[in-house]
């Protein structure tokens, strides 16, 4: 490929692209189990030269596992990998890199104390040369592929979106003939996605093959030629884009979708353009629902970031019972700080957050919980669960002092387990059992768990941030349904999301957050994508 010096592979071990029918990559009969979980069952996969190959399927279908096997991160129980027609023994990422394989991982893999350039050059070459050349090269790549990022910035000071771009830059910098992108778009804005696709088209034009994993049908249909669908650890089928349509692909991905496909699903699929999705029953009379008193009132809220600078600067909000307030914005404009401050997790510097009239600023998190505030954090692995603890433990978390689960001063584990079992059932959490570690669940199921815990508290205020990121269609729909339920029960919902589809679908009203300030407010249906895009980019109302 053009981009990046090809540091990894030597020319003897990996001859140049083989012309003709030889496939740059075939995987056959790959099986992999984790304990009792059969993540891959005789899976196969084939990649042609110069194609963008979509890999889709529900959460836990085995996409990541398959690619991790290819990248040497997981050792398969059985199976064969051929690169350029020759059997490849890939035992570690290093072997994979030597075979010209690069991977953008589903979860950020960065040394957060390192700068961008340090993260990018890690493991490349032994040249002791300073990082200036590397930084220049990164800037070039950023420009070429529209992946704006400051090479000198420390990674942990960057927004999730920027960090995602760093992951892509890492692979581009190394150069690769086979490029695996595992949900690379989950933190990117639509514009960033378009830029990425443009880059990918350029890359494949040079003969590089790309595996593209996503849950967004629109994206897959937009960029991929062929699409392989995985289910239950197998490749179900491979279709060409021209042979199918969005709905057909969606059915393949998660099984037959019922005929009552709503606009929700359309949005979840990423089928509709922003702003087009007008709810079928806009009748659900927003004003009526929102007619009550303000449940959540935020005034002049200032919240510091981890670095101590104000990341939220004087925000005023009011959310009524039964209203969903959407907060739009590009990642890194204070969303995390706002969400955490609204949930009572991050102390505000000044201002007030009133729930049913009581100002909670300055109180301990547990007081916020008792006041009825529930929070669904953005990073569910890091902030949502006790990974090494059981599902049962996780469902109890936060309610351990509640009288519902205590008897005689002690935790009544029988009742807790009973409750866990019913919750697992009602929320359809896929787990080997209530005692399985929560960290082993798939993302969709972790999200169900987090939601179950949040709703268990019968919240009056619900704060969600990017609640469907990385979730498959069914799981996303599940989340939407729960949000609707909460709203209907009279909960005040704050939905902070970078996904405009999602916001358009769920929010009764939308504010745009830019640089820690609310720069615009729109009622449902009263905006278009361009207008929002301008606001999100910081163009002021009055400008």
């Amino acid at each position, binding site marked *: 490929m053009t981009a990046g010096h090809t540091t990894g592979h030597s020319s003897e071990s990996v001859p140049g692209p083989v012309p003709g029918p030889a496939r740059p990559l075939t995987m056959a009969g790959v099986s992999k189990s984790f304990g009792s979980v059969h993540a891959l069952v005789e899976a196969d996969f084939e990649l042609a030269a110069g194609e963008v190959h979509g890999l889709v399927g529900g959460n836990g279908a085995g996409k990541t596992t398959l690619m991790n096997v290819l990248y040497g991160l997981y050792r398969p129980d059985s199976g064969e990998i051929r690169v350029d027609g020759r059997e490849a023994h890939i035992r570690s990422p290093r072997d994979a890199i030597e075979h010209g394989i690069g991977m953008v991982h589903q979860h950020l893999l960065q040394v957060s104390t390192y700068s961008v350039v340090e993260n990018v050059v890690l493991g490349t070459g032994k040249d002791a040369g300073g990082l200036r050349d590397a930084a220049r090269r990164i800037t070039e790549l950023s420009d070429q592929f529209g992946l704006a990022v400051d090479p000198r910035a420390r990674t942990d000071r960057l927004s999730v979106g920027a960090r995602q771009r760093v992951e892509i830059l890492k692979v581009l910098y190394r150069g690769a003939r086979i490029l695996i992108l595992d949900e690379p778009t989950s933190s990117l804005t639509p514009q960033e996605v378009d830029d990425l696709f443009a880059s990918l088209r350029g890359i494949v034009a040079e003969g590089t093959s790309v595996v593209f994993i996503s849950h967004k049908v629109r994206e897959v249909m937009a960029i991929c030629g062929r699409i392989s669908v995985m289910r239950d650890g197998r490749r179900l089928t491979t279709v060409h884009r021209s042979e199918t349509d969005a709905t057909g692909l969606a059915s393949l991905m998660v099984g037959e979708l019922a005929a009552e496909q709503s606009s929700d699903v359309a949005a979840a699929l990423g089928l509709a353009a922003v702003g087009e999705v007008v709810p079928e029953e806009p009748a659900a009379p927003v004003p009526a629902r929102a007619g009550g008193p303000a449940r959540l009132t935020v005034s002049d809220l200032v919240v510091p970031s981890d670095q101590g600078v104000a990341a939220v600067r004087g925000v005023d909000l009011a959310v009524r019972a039964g209203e969903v307030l959407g907060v739009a914005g590009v990642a890194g404009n204070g969303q995390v700080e706002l969400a955490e401050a609204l*949930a009572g*997790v991050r102390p505000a510097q000044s201002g007030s957050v009133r729930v049913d009239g009581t100002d909670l600023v300055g109180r301990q998190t547990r007081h916020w919980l008792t006041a009825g505030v529930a929070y669904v954090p953005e990073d569910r692995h*890091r902030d949502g669960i*006790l*990974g090494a603890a*059981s599902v049962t433990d996780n469902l109890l*978390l*936060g309610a351990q002092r509640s009288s519902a689960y205590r008897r005689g001063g002690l935790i009544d584990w029988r009742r807790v*387990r009973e409750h866990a079992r019913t919750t697992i059932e009602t929320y359809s959490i896929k787990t080997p059992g209530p*005692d399985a570690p929560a960290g082993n669940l798939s993302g969709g199921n972790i999200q169900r768990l987090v939601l179950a815990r949040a709703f268990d508290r019968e919240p009056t205020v619900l704060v969600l941030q990017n609640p469907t990121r990385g979730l498959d269609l069914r799981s996303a729909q599940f989340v939407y349904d729960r949000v609707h339920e909460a709203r209907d029960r009279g909960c005040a919902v704050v939905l902070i999301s970078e996904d405009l589809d999602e916001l358009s679908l769920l929010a009764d009203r939308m504010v745009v957050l830019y640089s820690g300030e609310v720069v615009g407010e729109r009622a449902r249906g009263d905006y278009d994508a361009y207008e929002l895009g301008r606001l999100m980019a910081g163009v002021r109302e009055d400008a």
Partner: protein
Amino acid sequence: MSAPVLTEPDALAPARPSMAARVIRGVLPYVLALVLAFVVAGIVIAALGYDPIEAFRTILTTSFKTGFGFTETLTKWVPLTLLALGFTIPLAVGRFNIGGEGQLLVGATAAAGVGIVYADLPSAVLLPMVIVAGVLAGVVWAGIAALLMGRFHVNEILSTVLLNFVSFQVLDYAATEVWSDPAAGVAATQGVGEGAELPTIGGPPGVHAGLLLAGAVALATILVTRRTSAGFELRAAGTNPRAAAINGIRVERVAVIALIVGGALGGLAGALEVSGVHGRAIEGMQTNFLLLGIIIGLIARGSAVWVPVVAFGIAILEVGASSMQRTVGVPAEMVLIIEALILIFLLLSDVIAGRLARRVA
């Protein structure tokens, strides 16, 4: 530094496969490991020209052959269990209490001080005072580290290690300047009053009644960690501090309290050594209780249930191994090497167990 996450895998599932089956499956690898350890250690002992069979007979039987061997083992079990718990409780929140030694010593010093100053008080008054003094001293000592950790983010390994060194001098000062006993022949305080001494149970020789107290503490720890919300919060905070905080748990406070509780147990161990064993505070009385306590805590994976069991095993090993000198004449250093071998093989038992489990699955 972040801790290895120690969960109690079986804490939440009191009713799963039959208890016996689980115990056997749990214990079998350890037995295998011990056998392996003995084989390897035996080879080393034989190579040095000593009788390995006799050496092992000593290790395994010293604790049971005579009444005082058993007494001695139980007597060692008390501080080992307390220090192991004092290590594992903070460890559950990912904090390392390396200060058990210092907490024991200041606890012993305070206990001895009270026992000397109020020597004439009757037992019913003095004994509780002595024990409370020890516990409080341990609390203060760990409290310093906890304060530095909670308020100033000073790493607790650093502070507890340094405080150990300070505690040596605290005891030294008390034993040589304040309540010096000129006849002791070692830096030791005077003896405490009779009322400060714990009654013995069983015997003769019998074990001091601190055994019951330590047993009660161990049971209470099991109860608290498994059945109370405080215990749940402790484990949650250790498993994922961020998620715990988001769900209303004050992680730093939990950690501070855990460290202080750990110190209290160390101080208690010191007080019991004074009022149950030595009748005074003596320089060197901590021996290697701290290191063994850490090892016990880690081998037991932080489980309050297993700590007393492992502590008993280690007490047998300690008592038996140090008797090997007497019975077979192996040099003192060999004892350490054999203990190290046994430890390493005990750890290997996890690997063995893991491999076995994988084979089964």
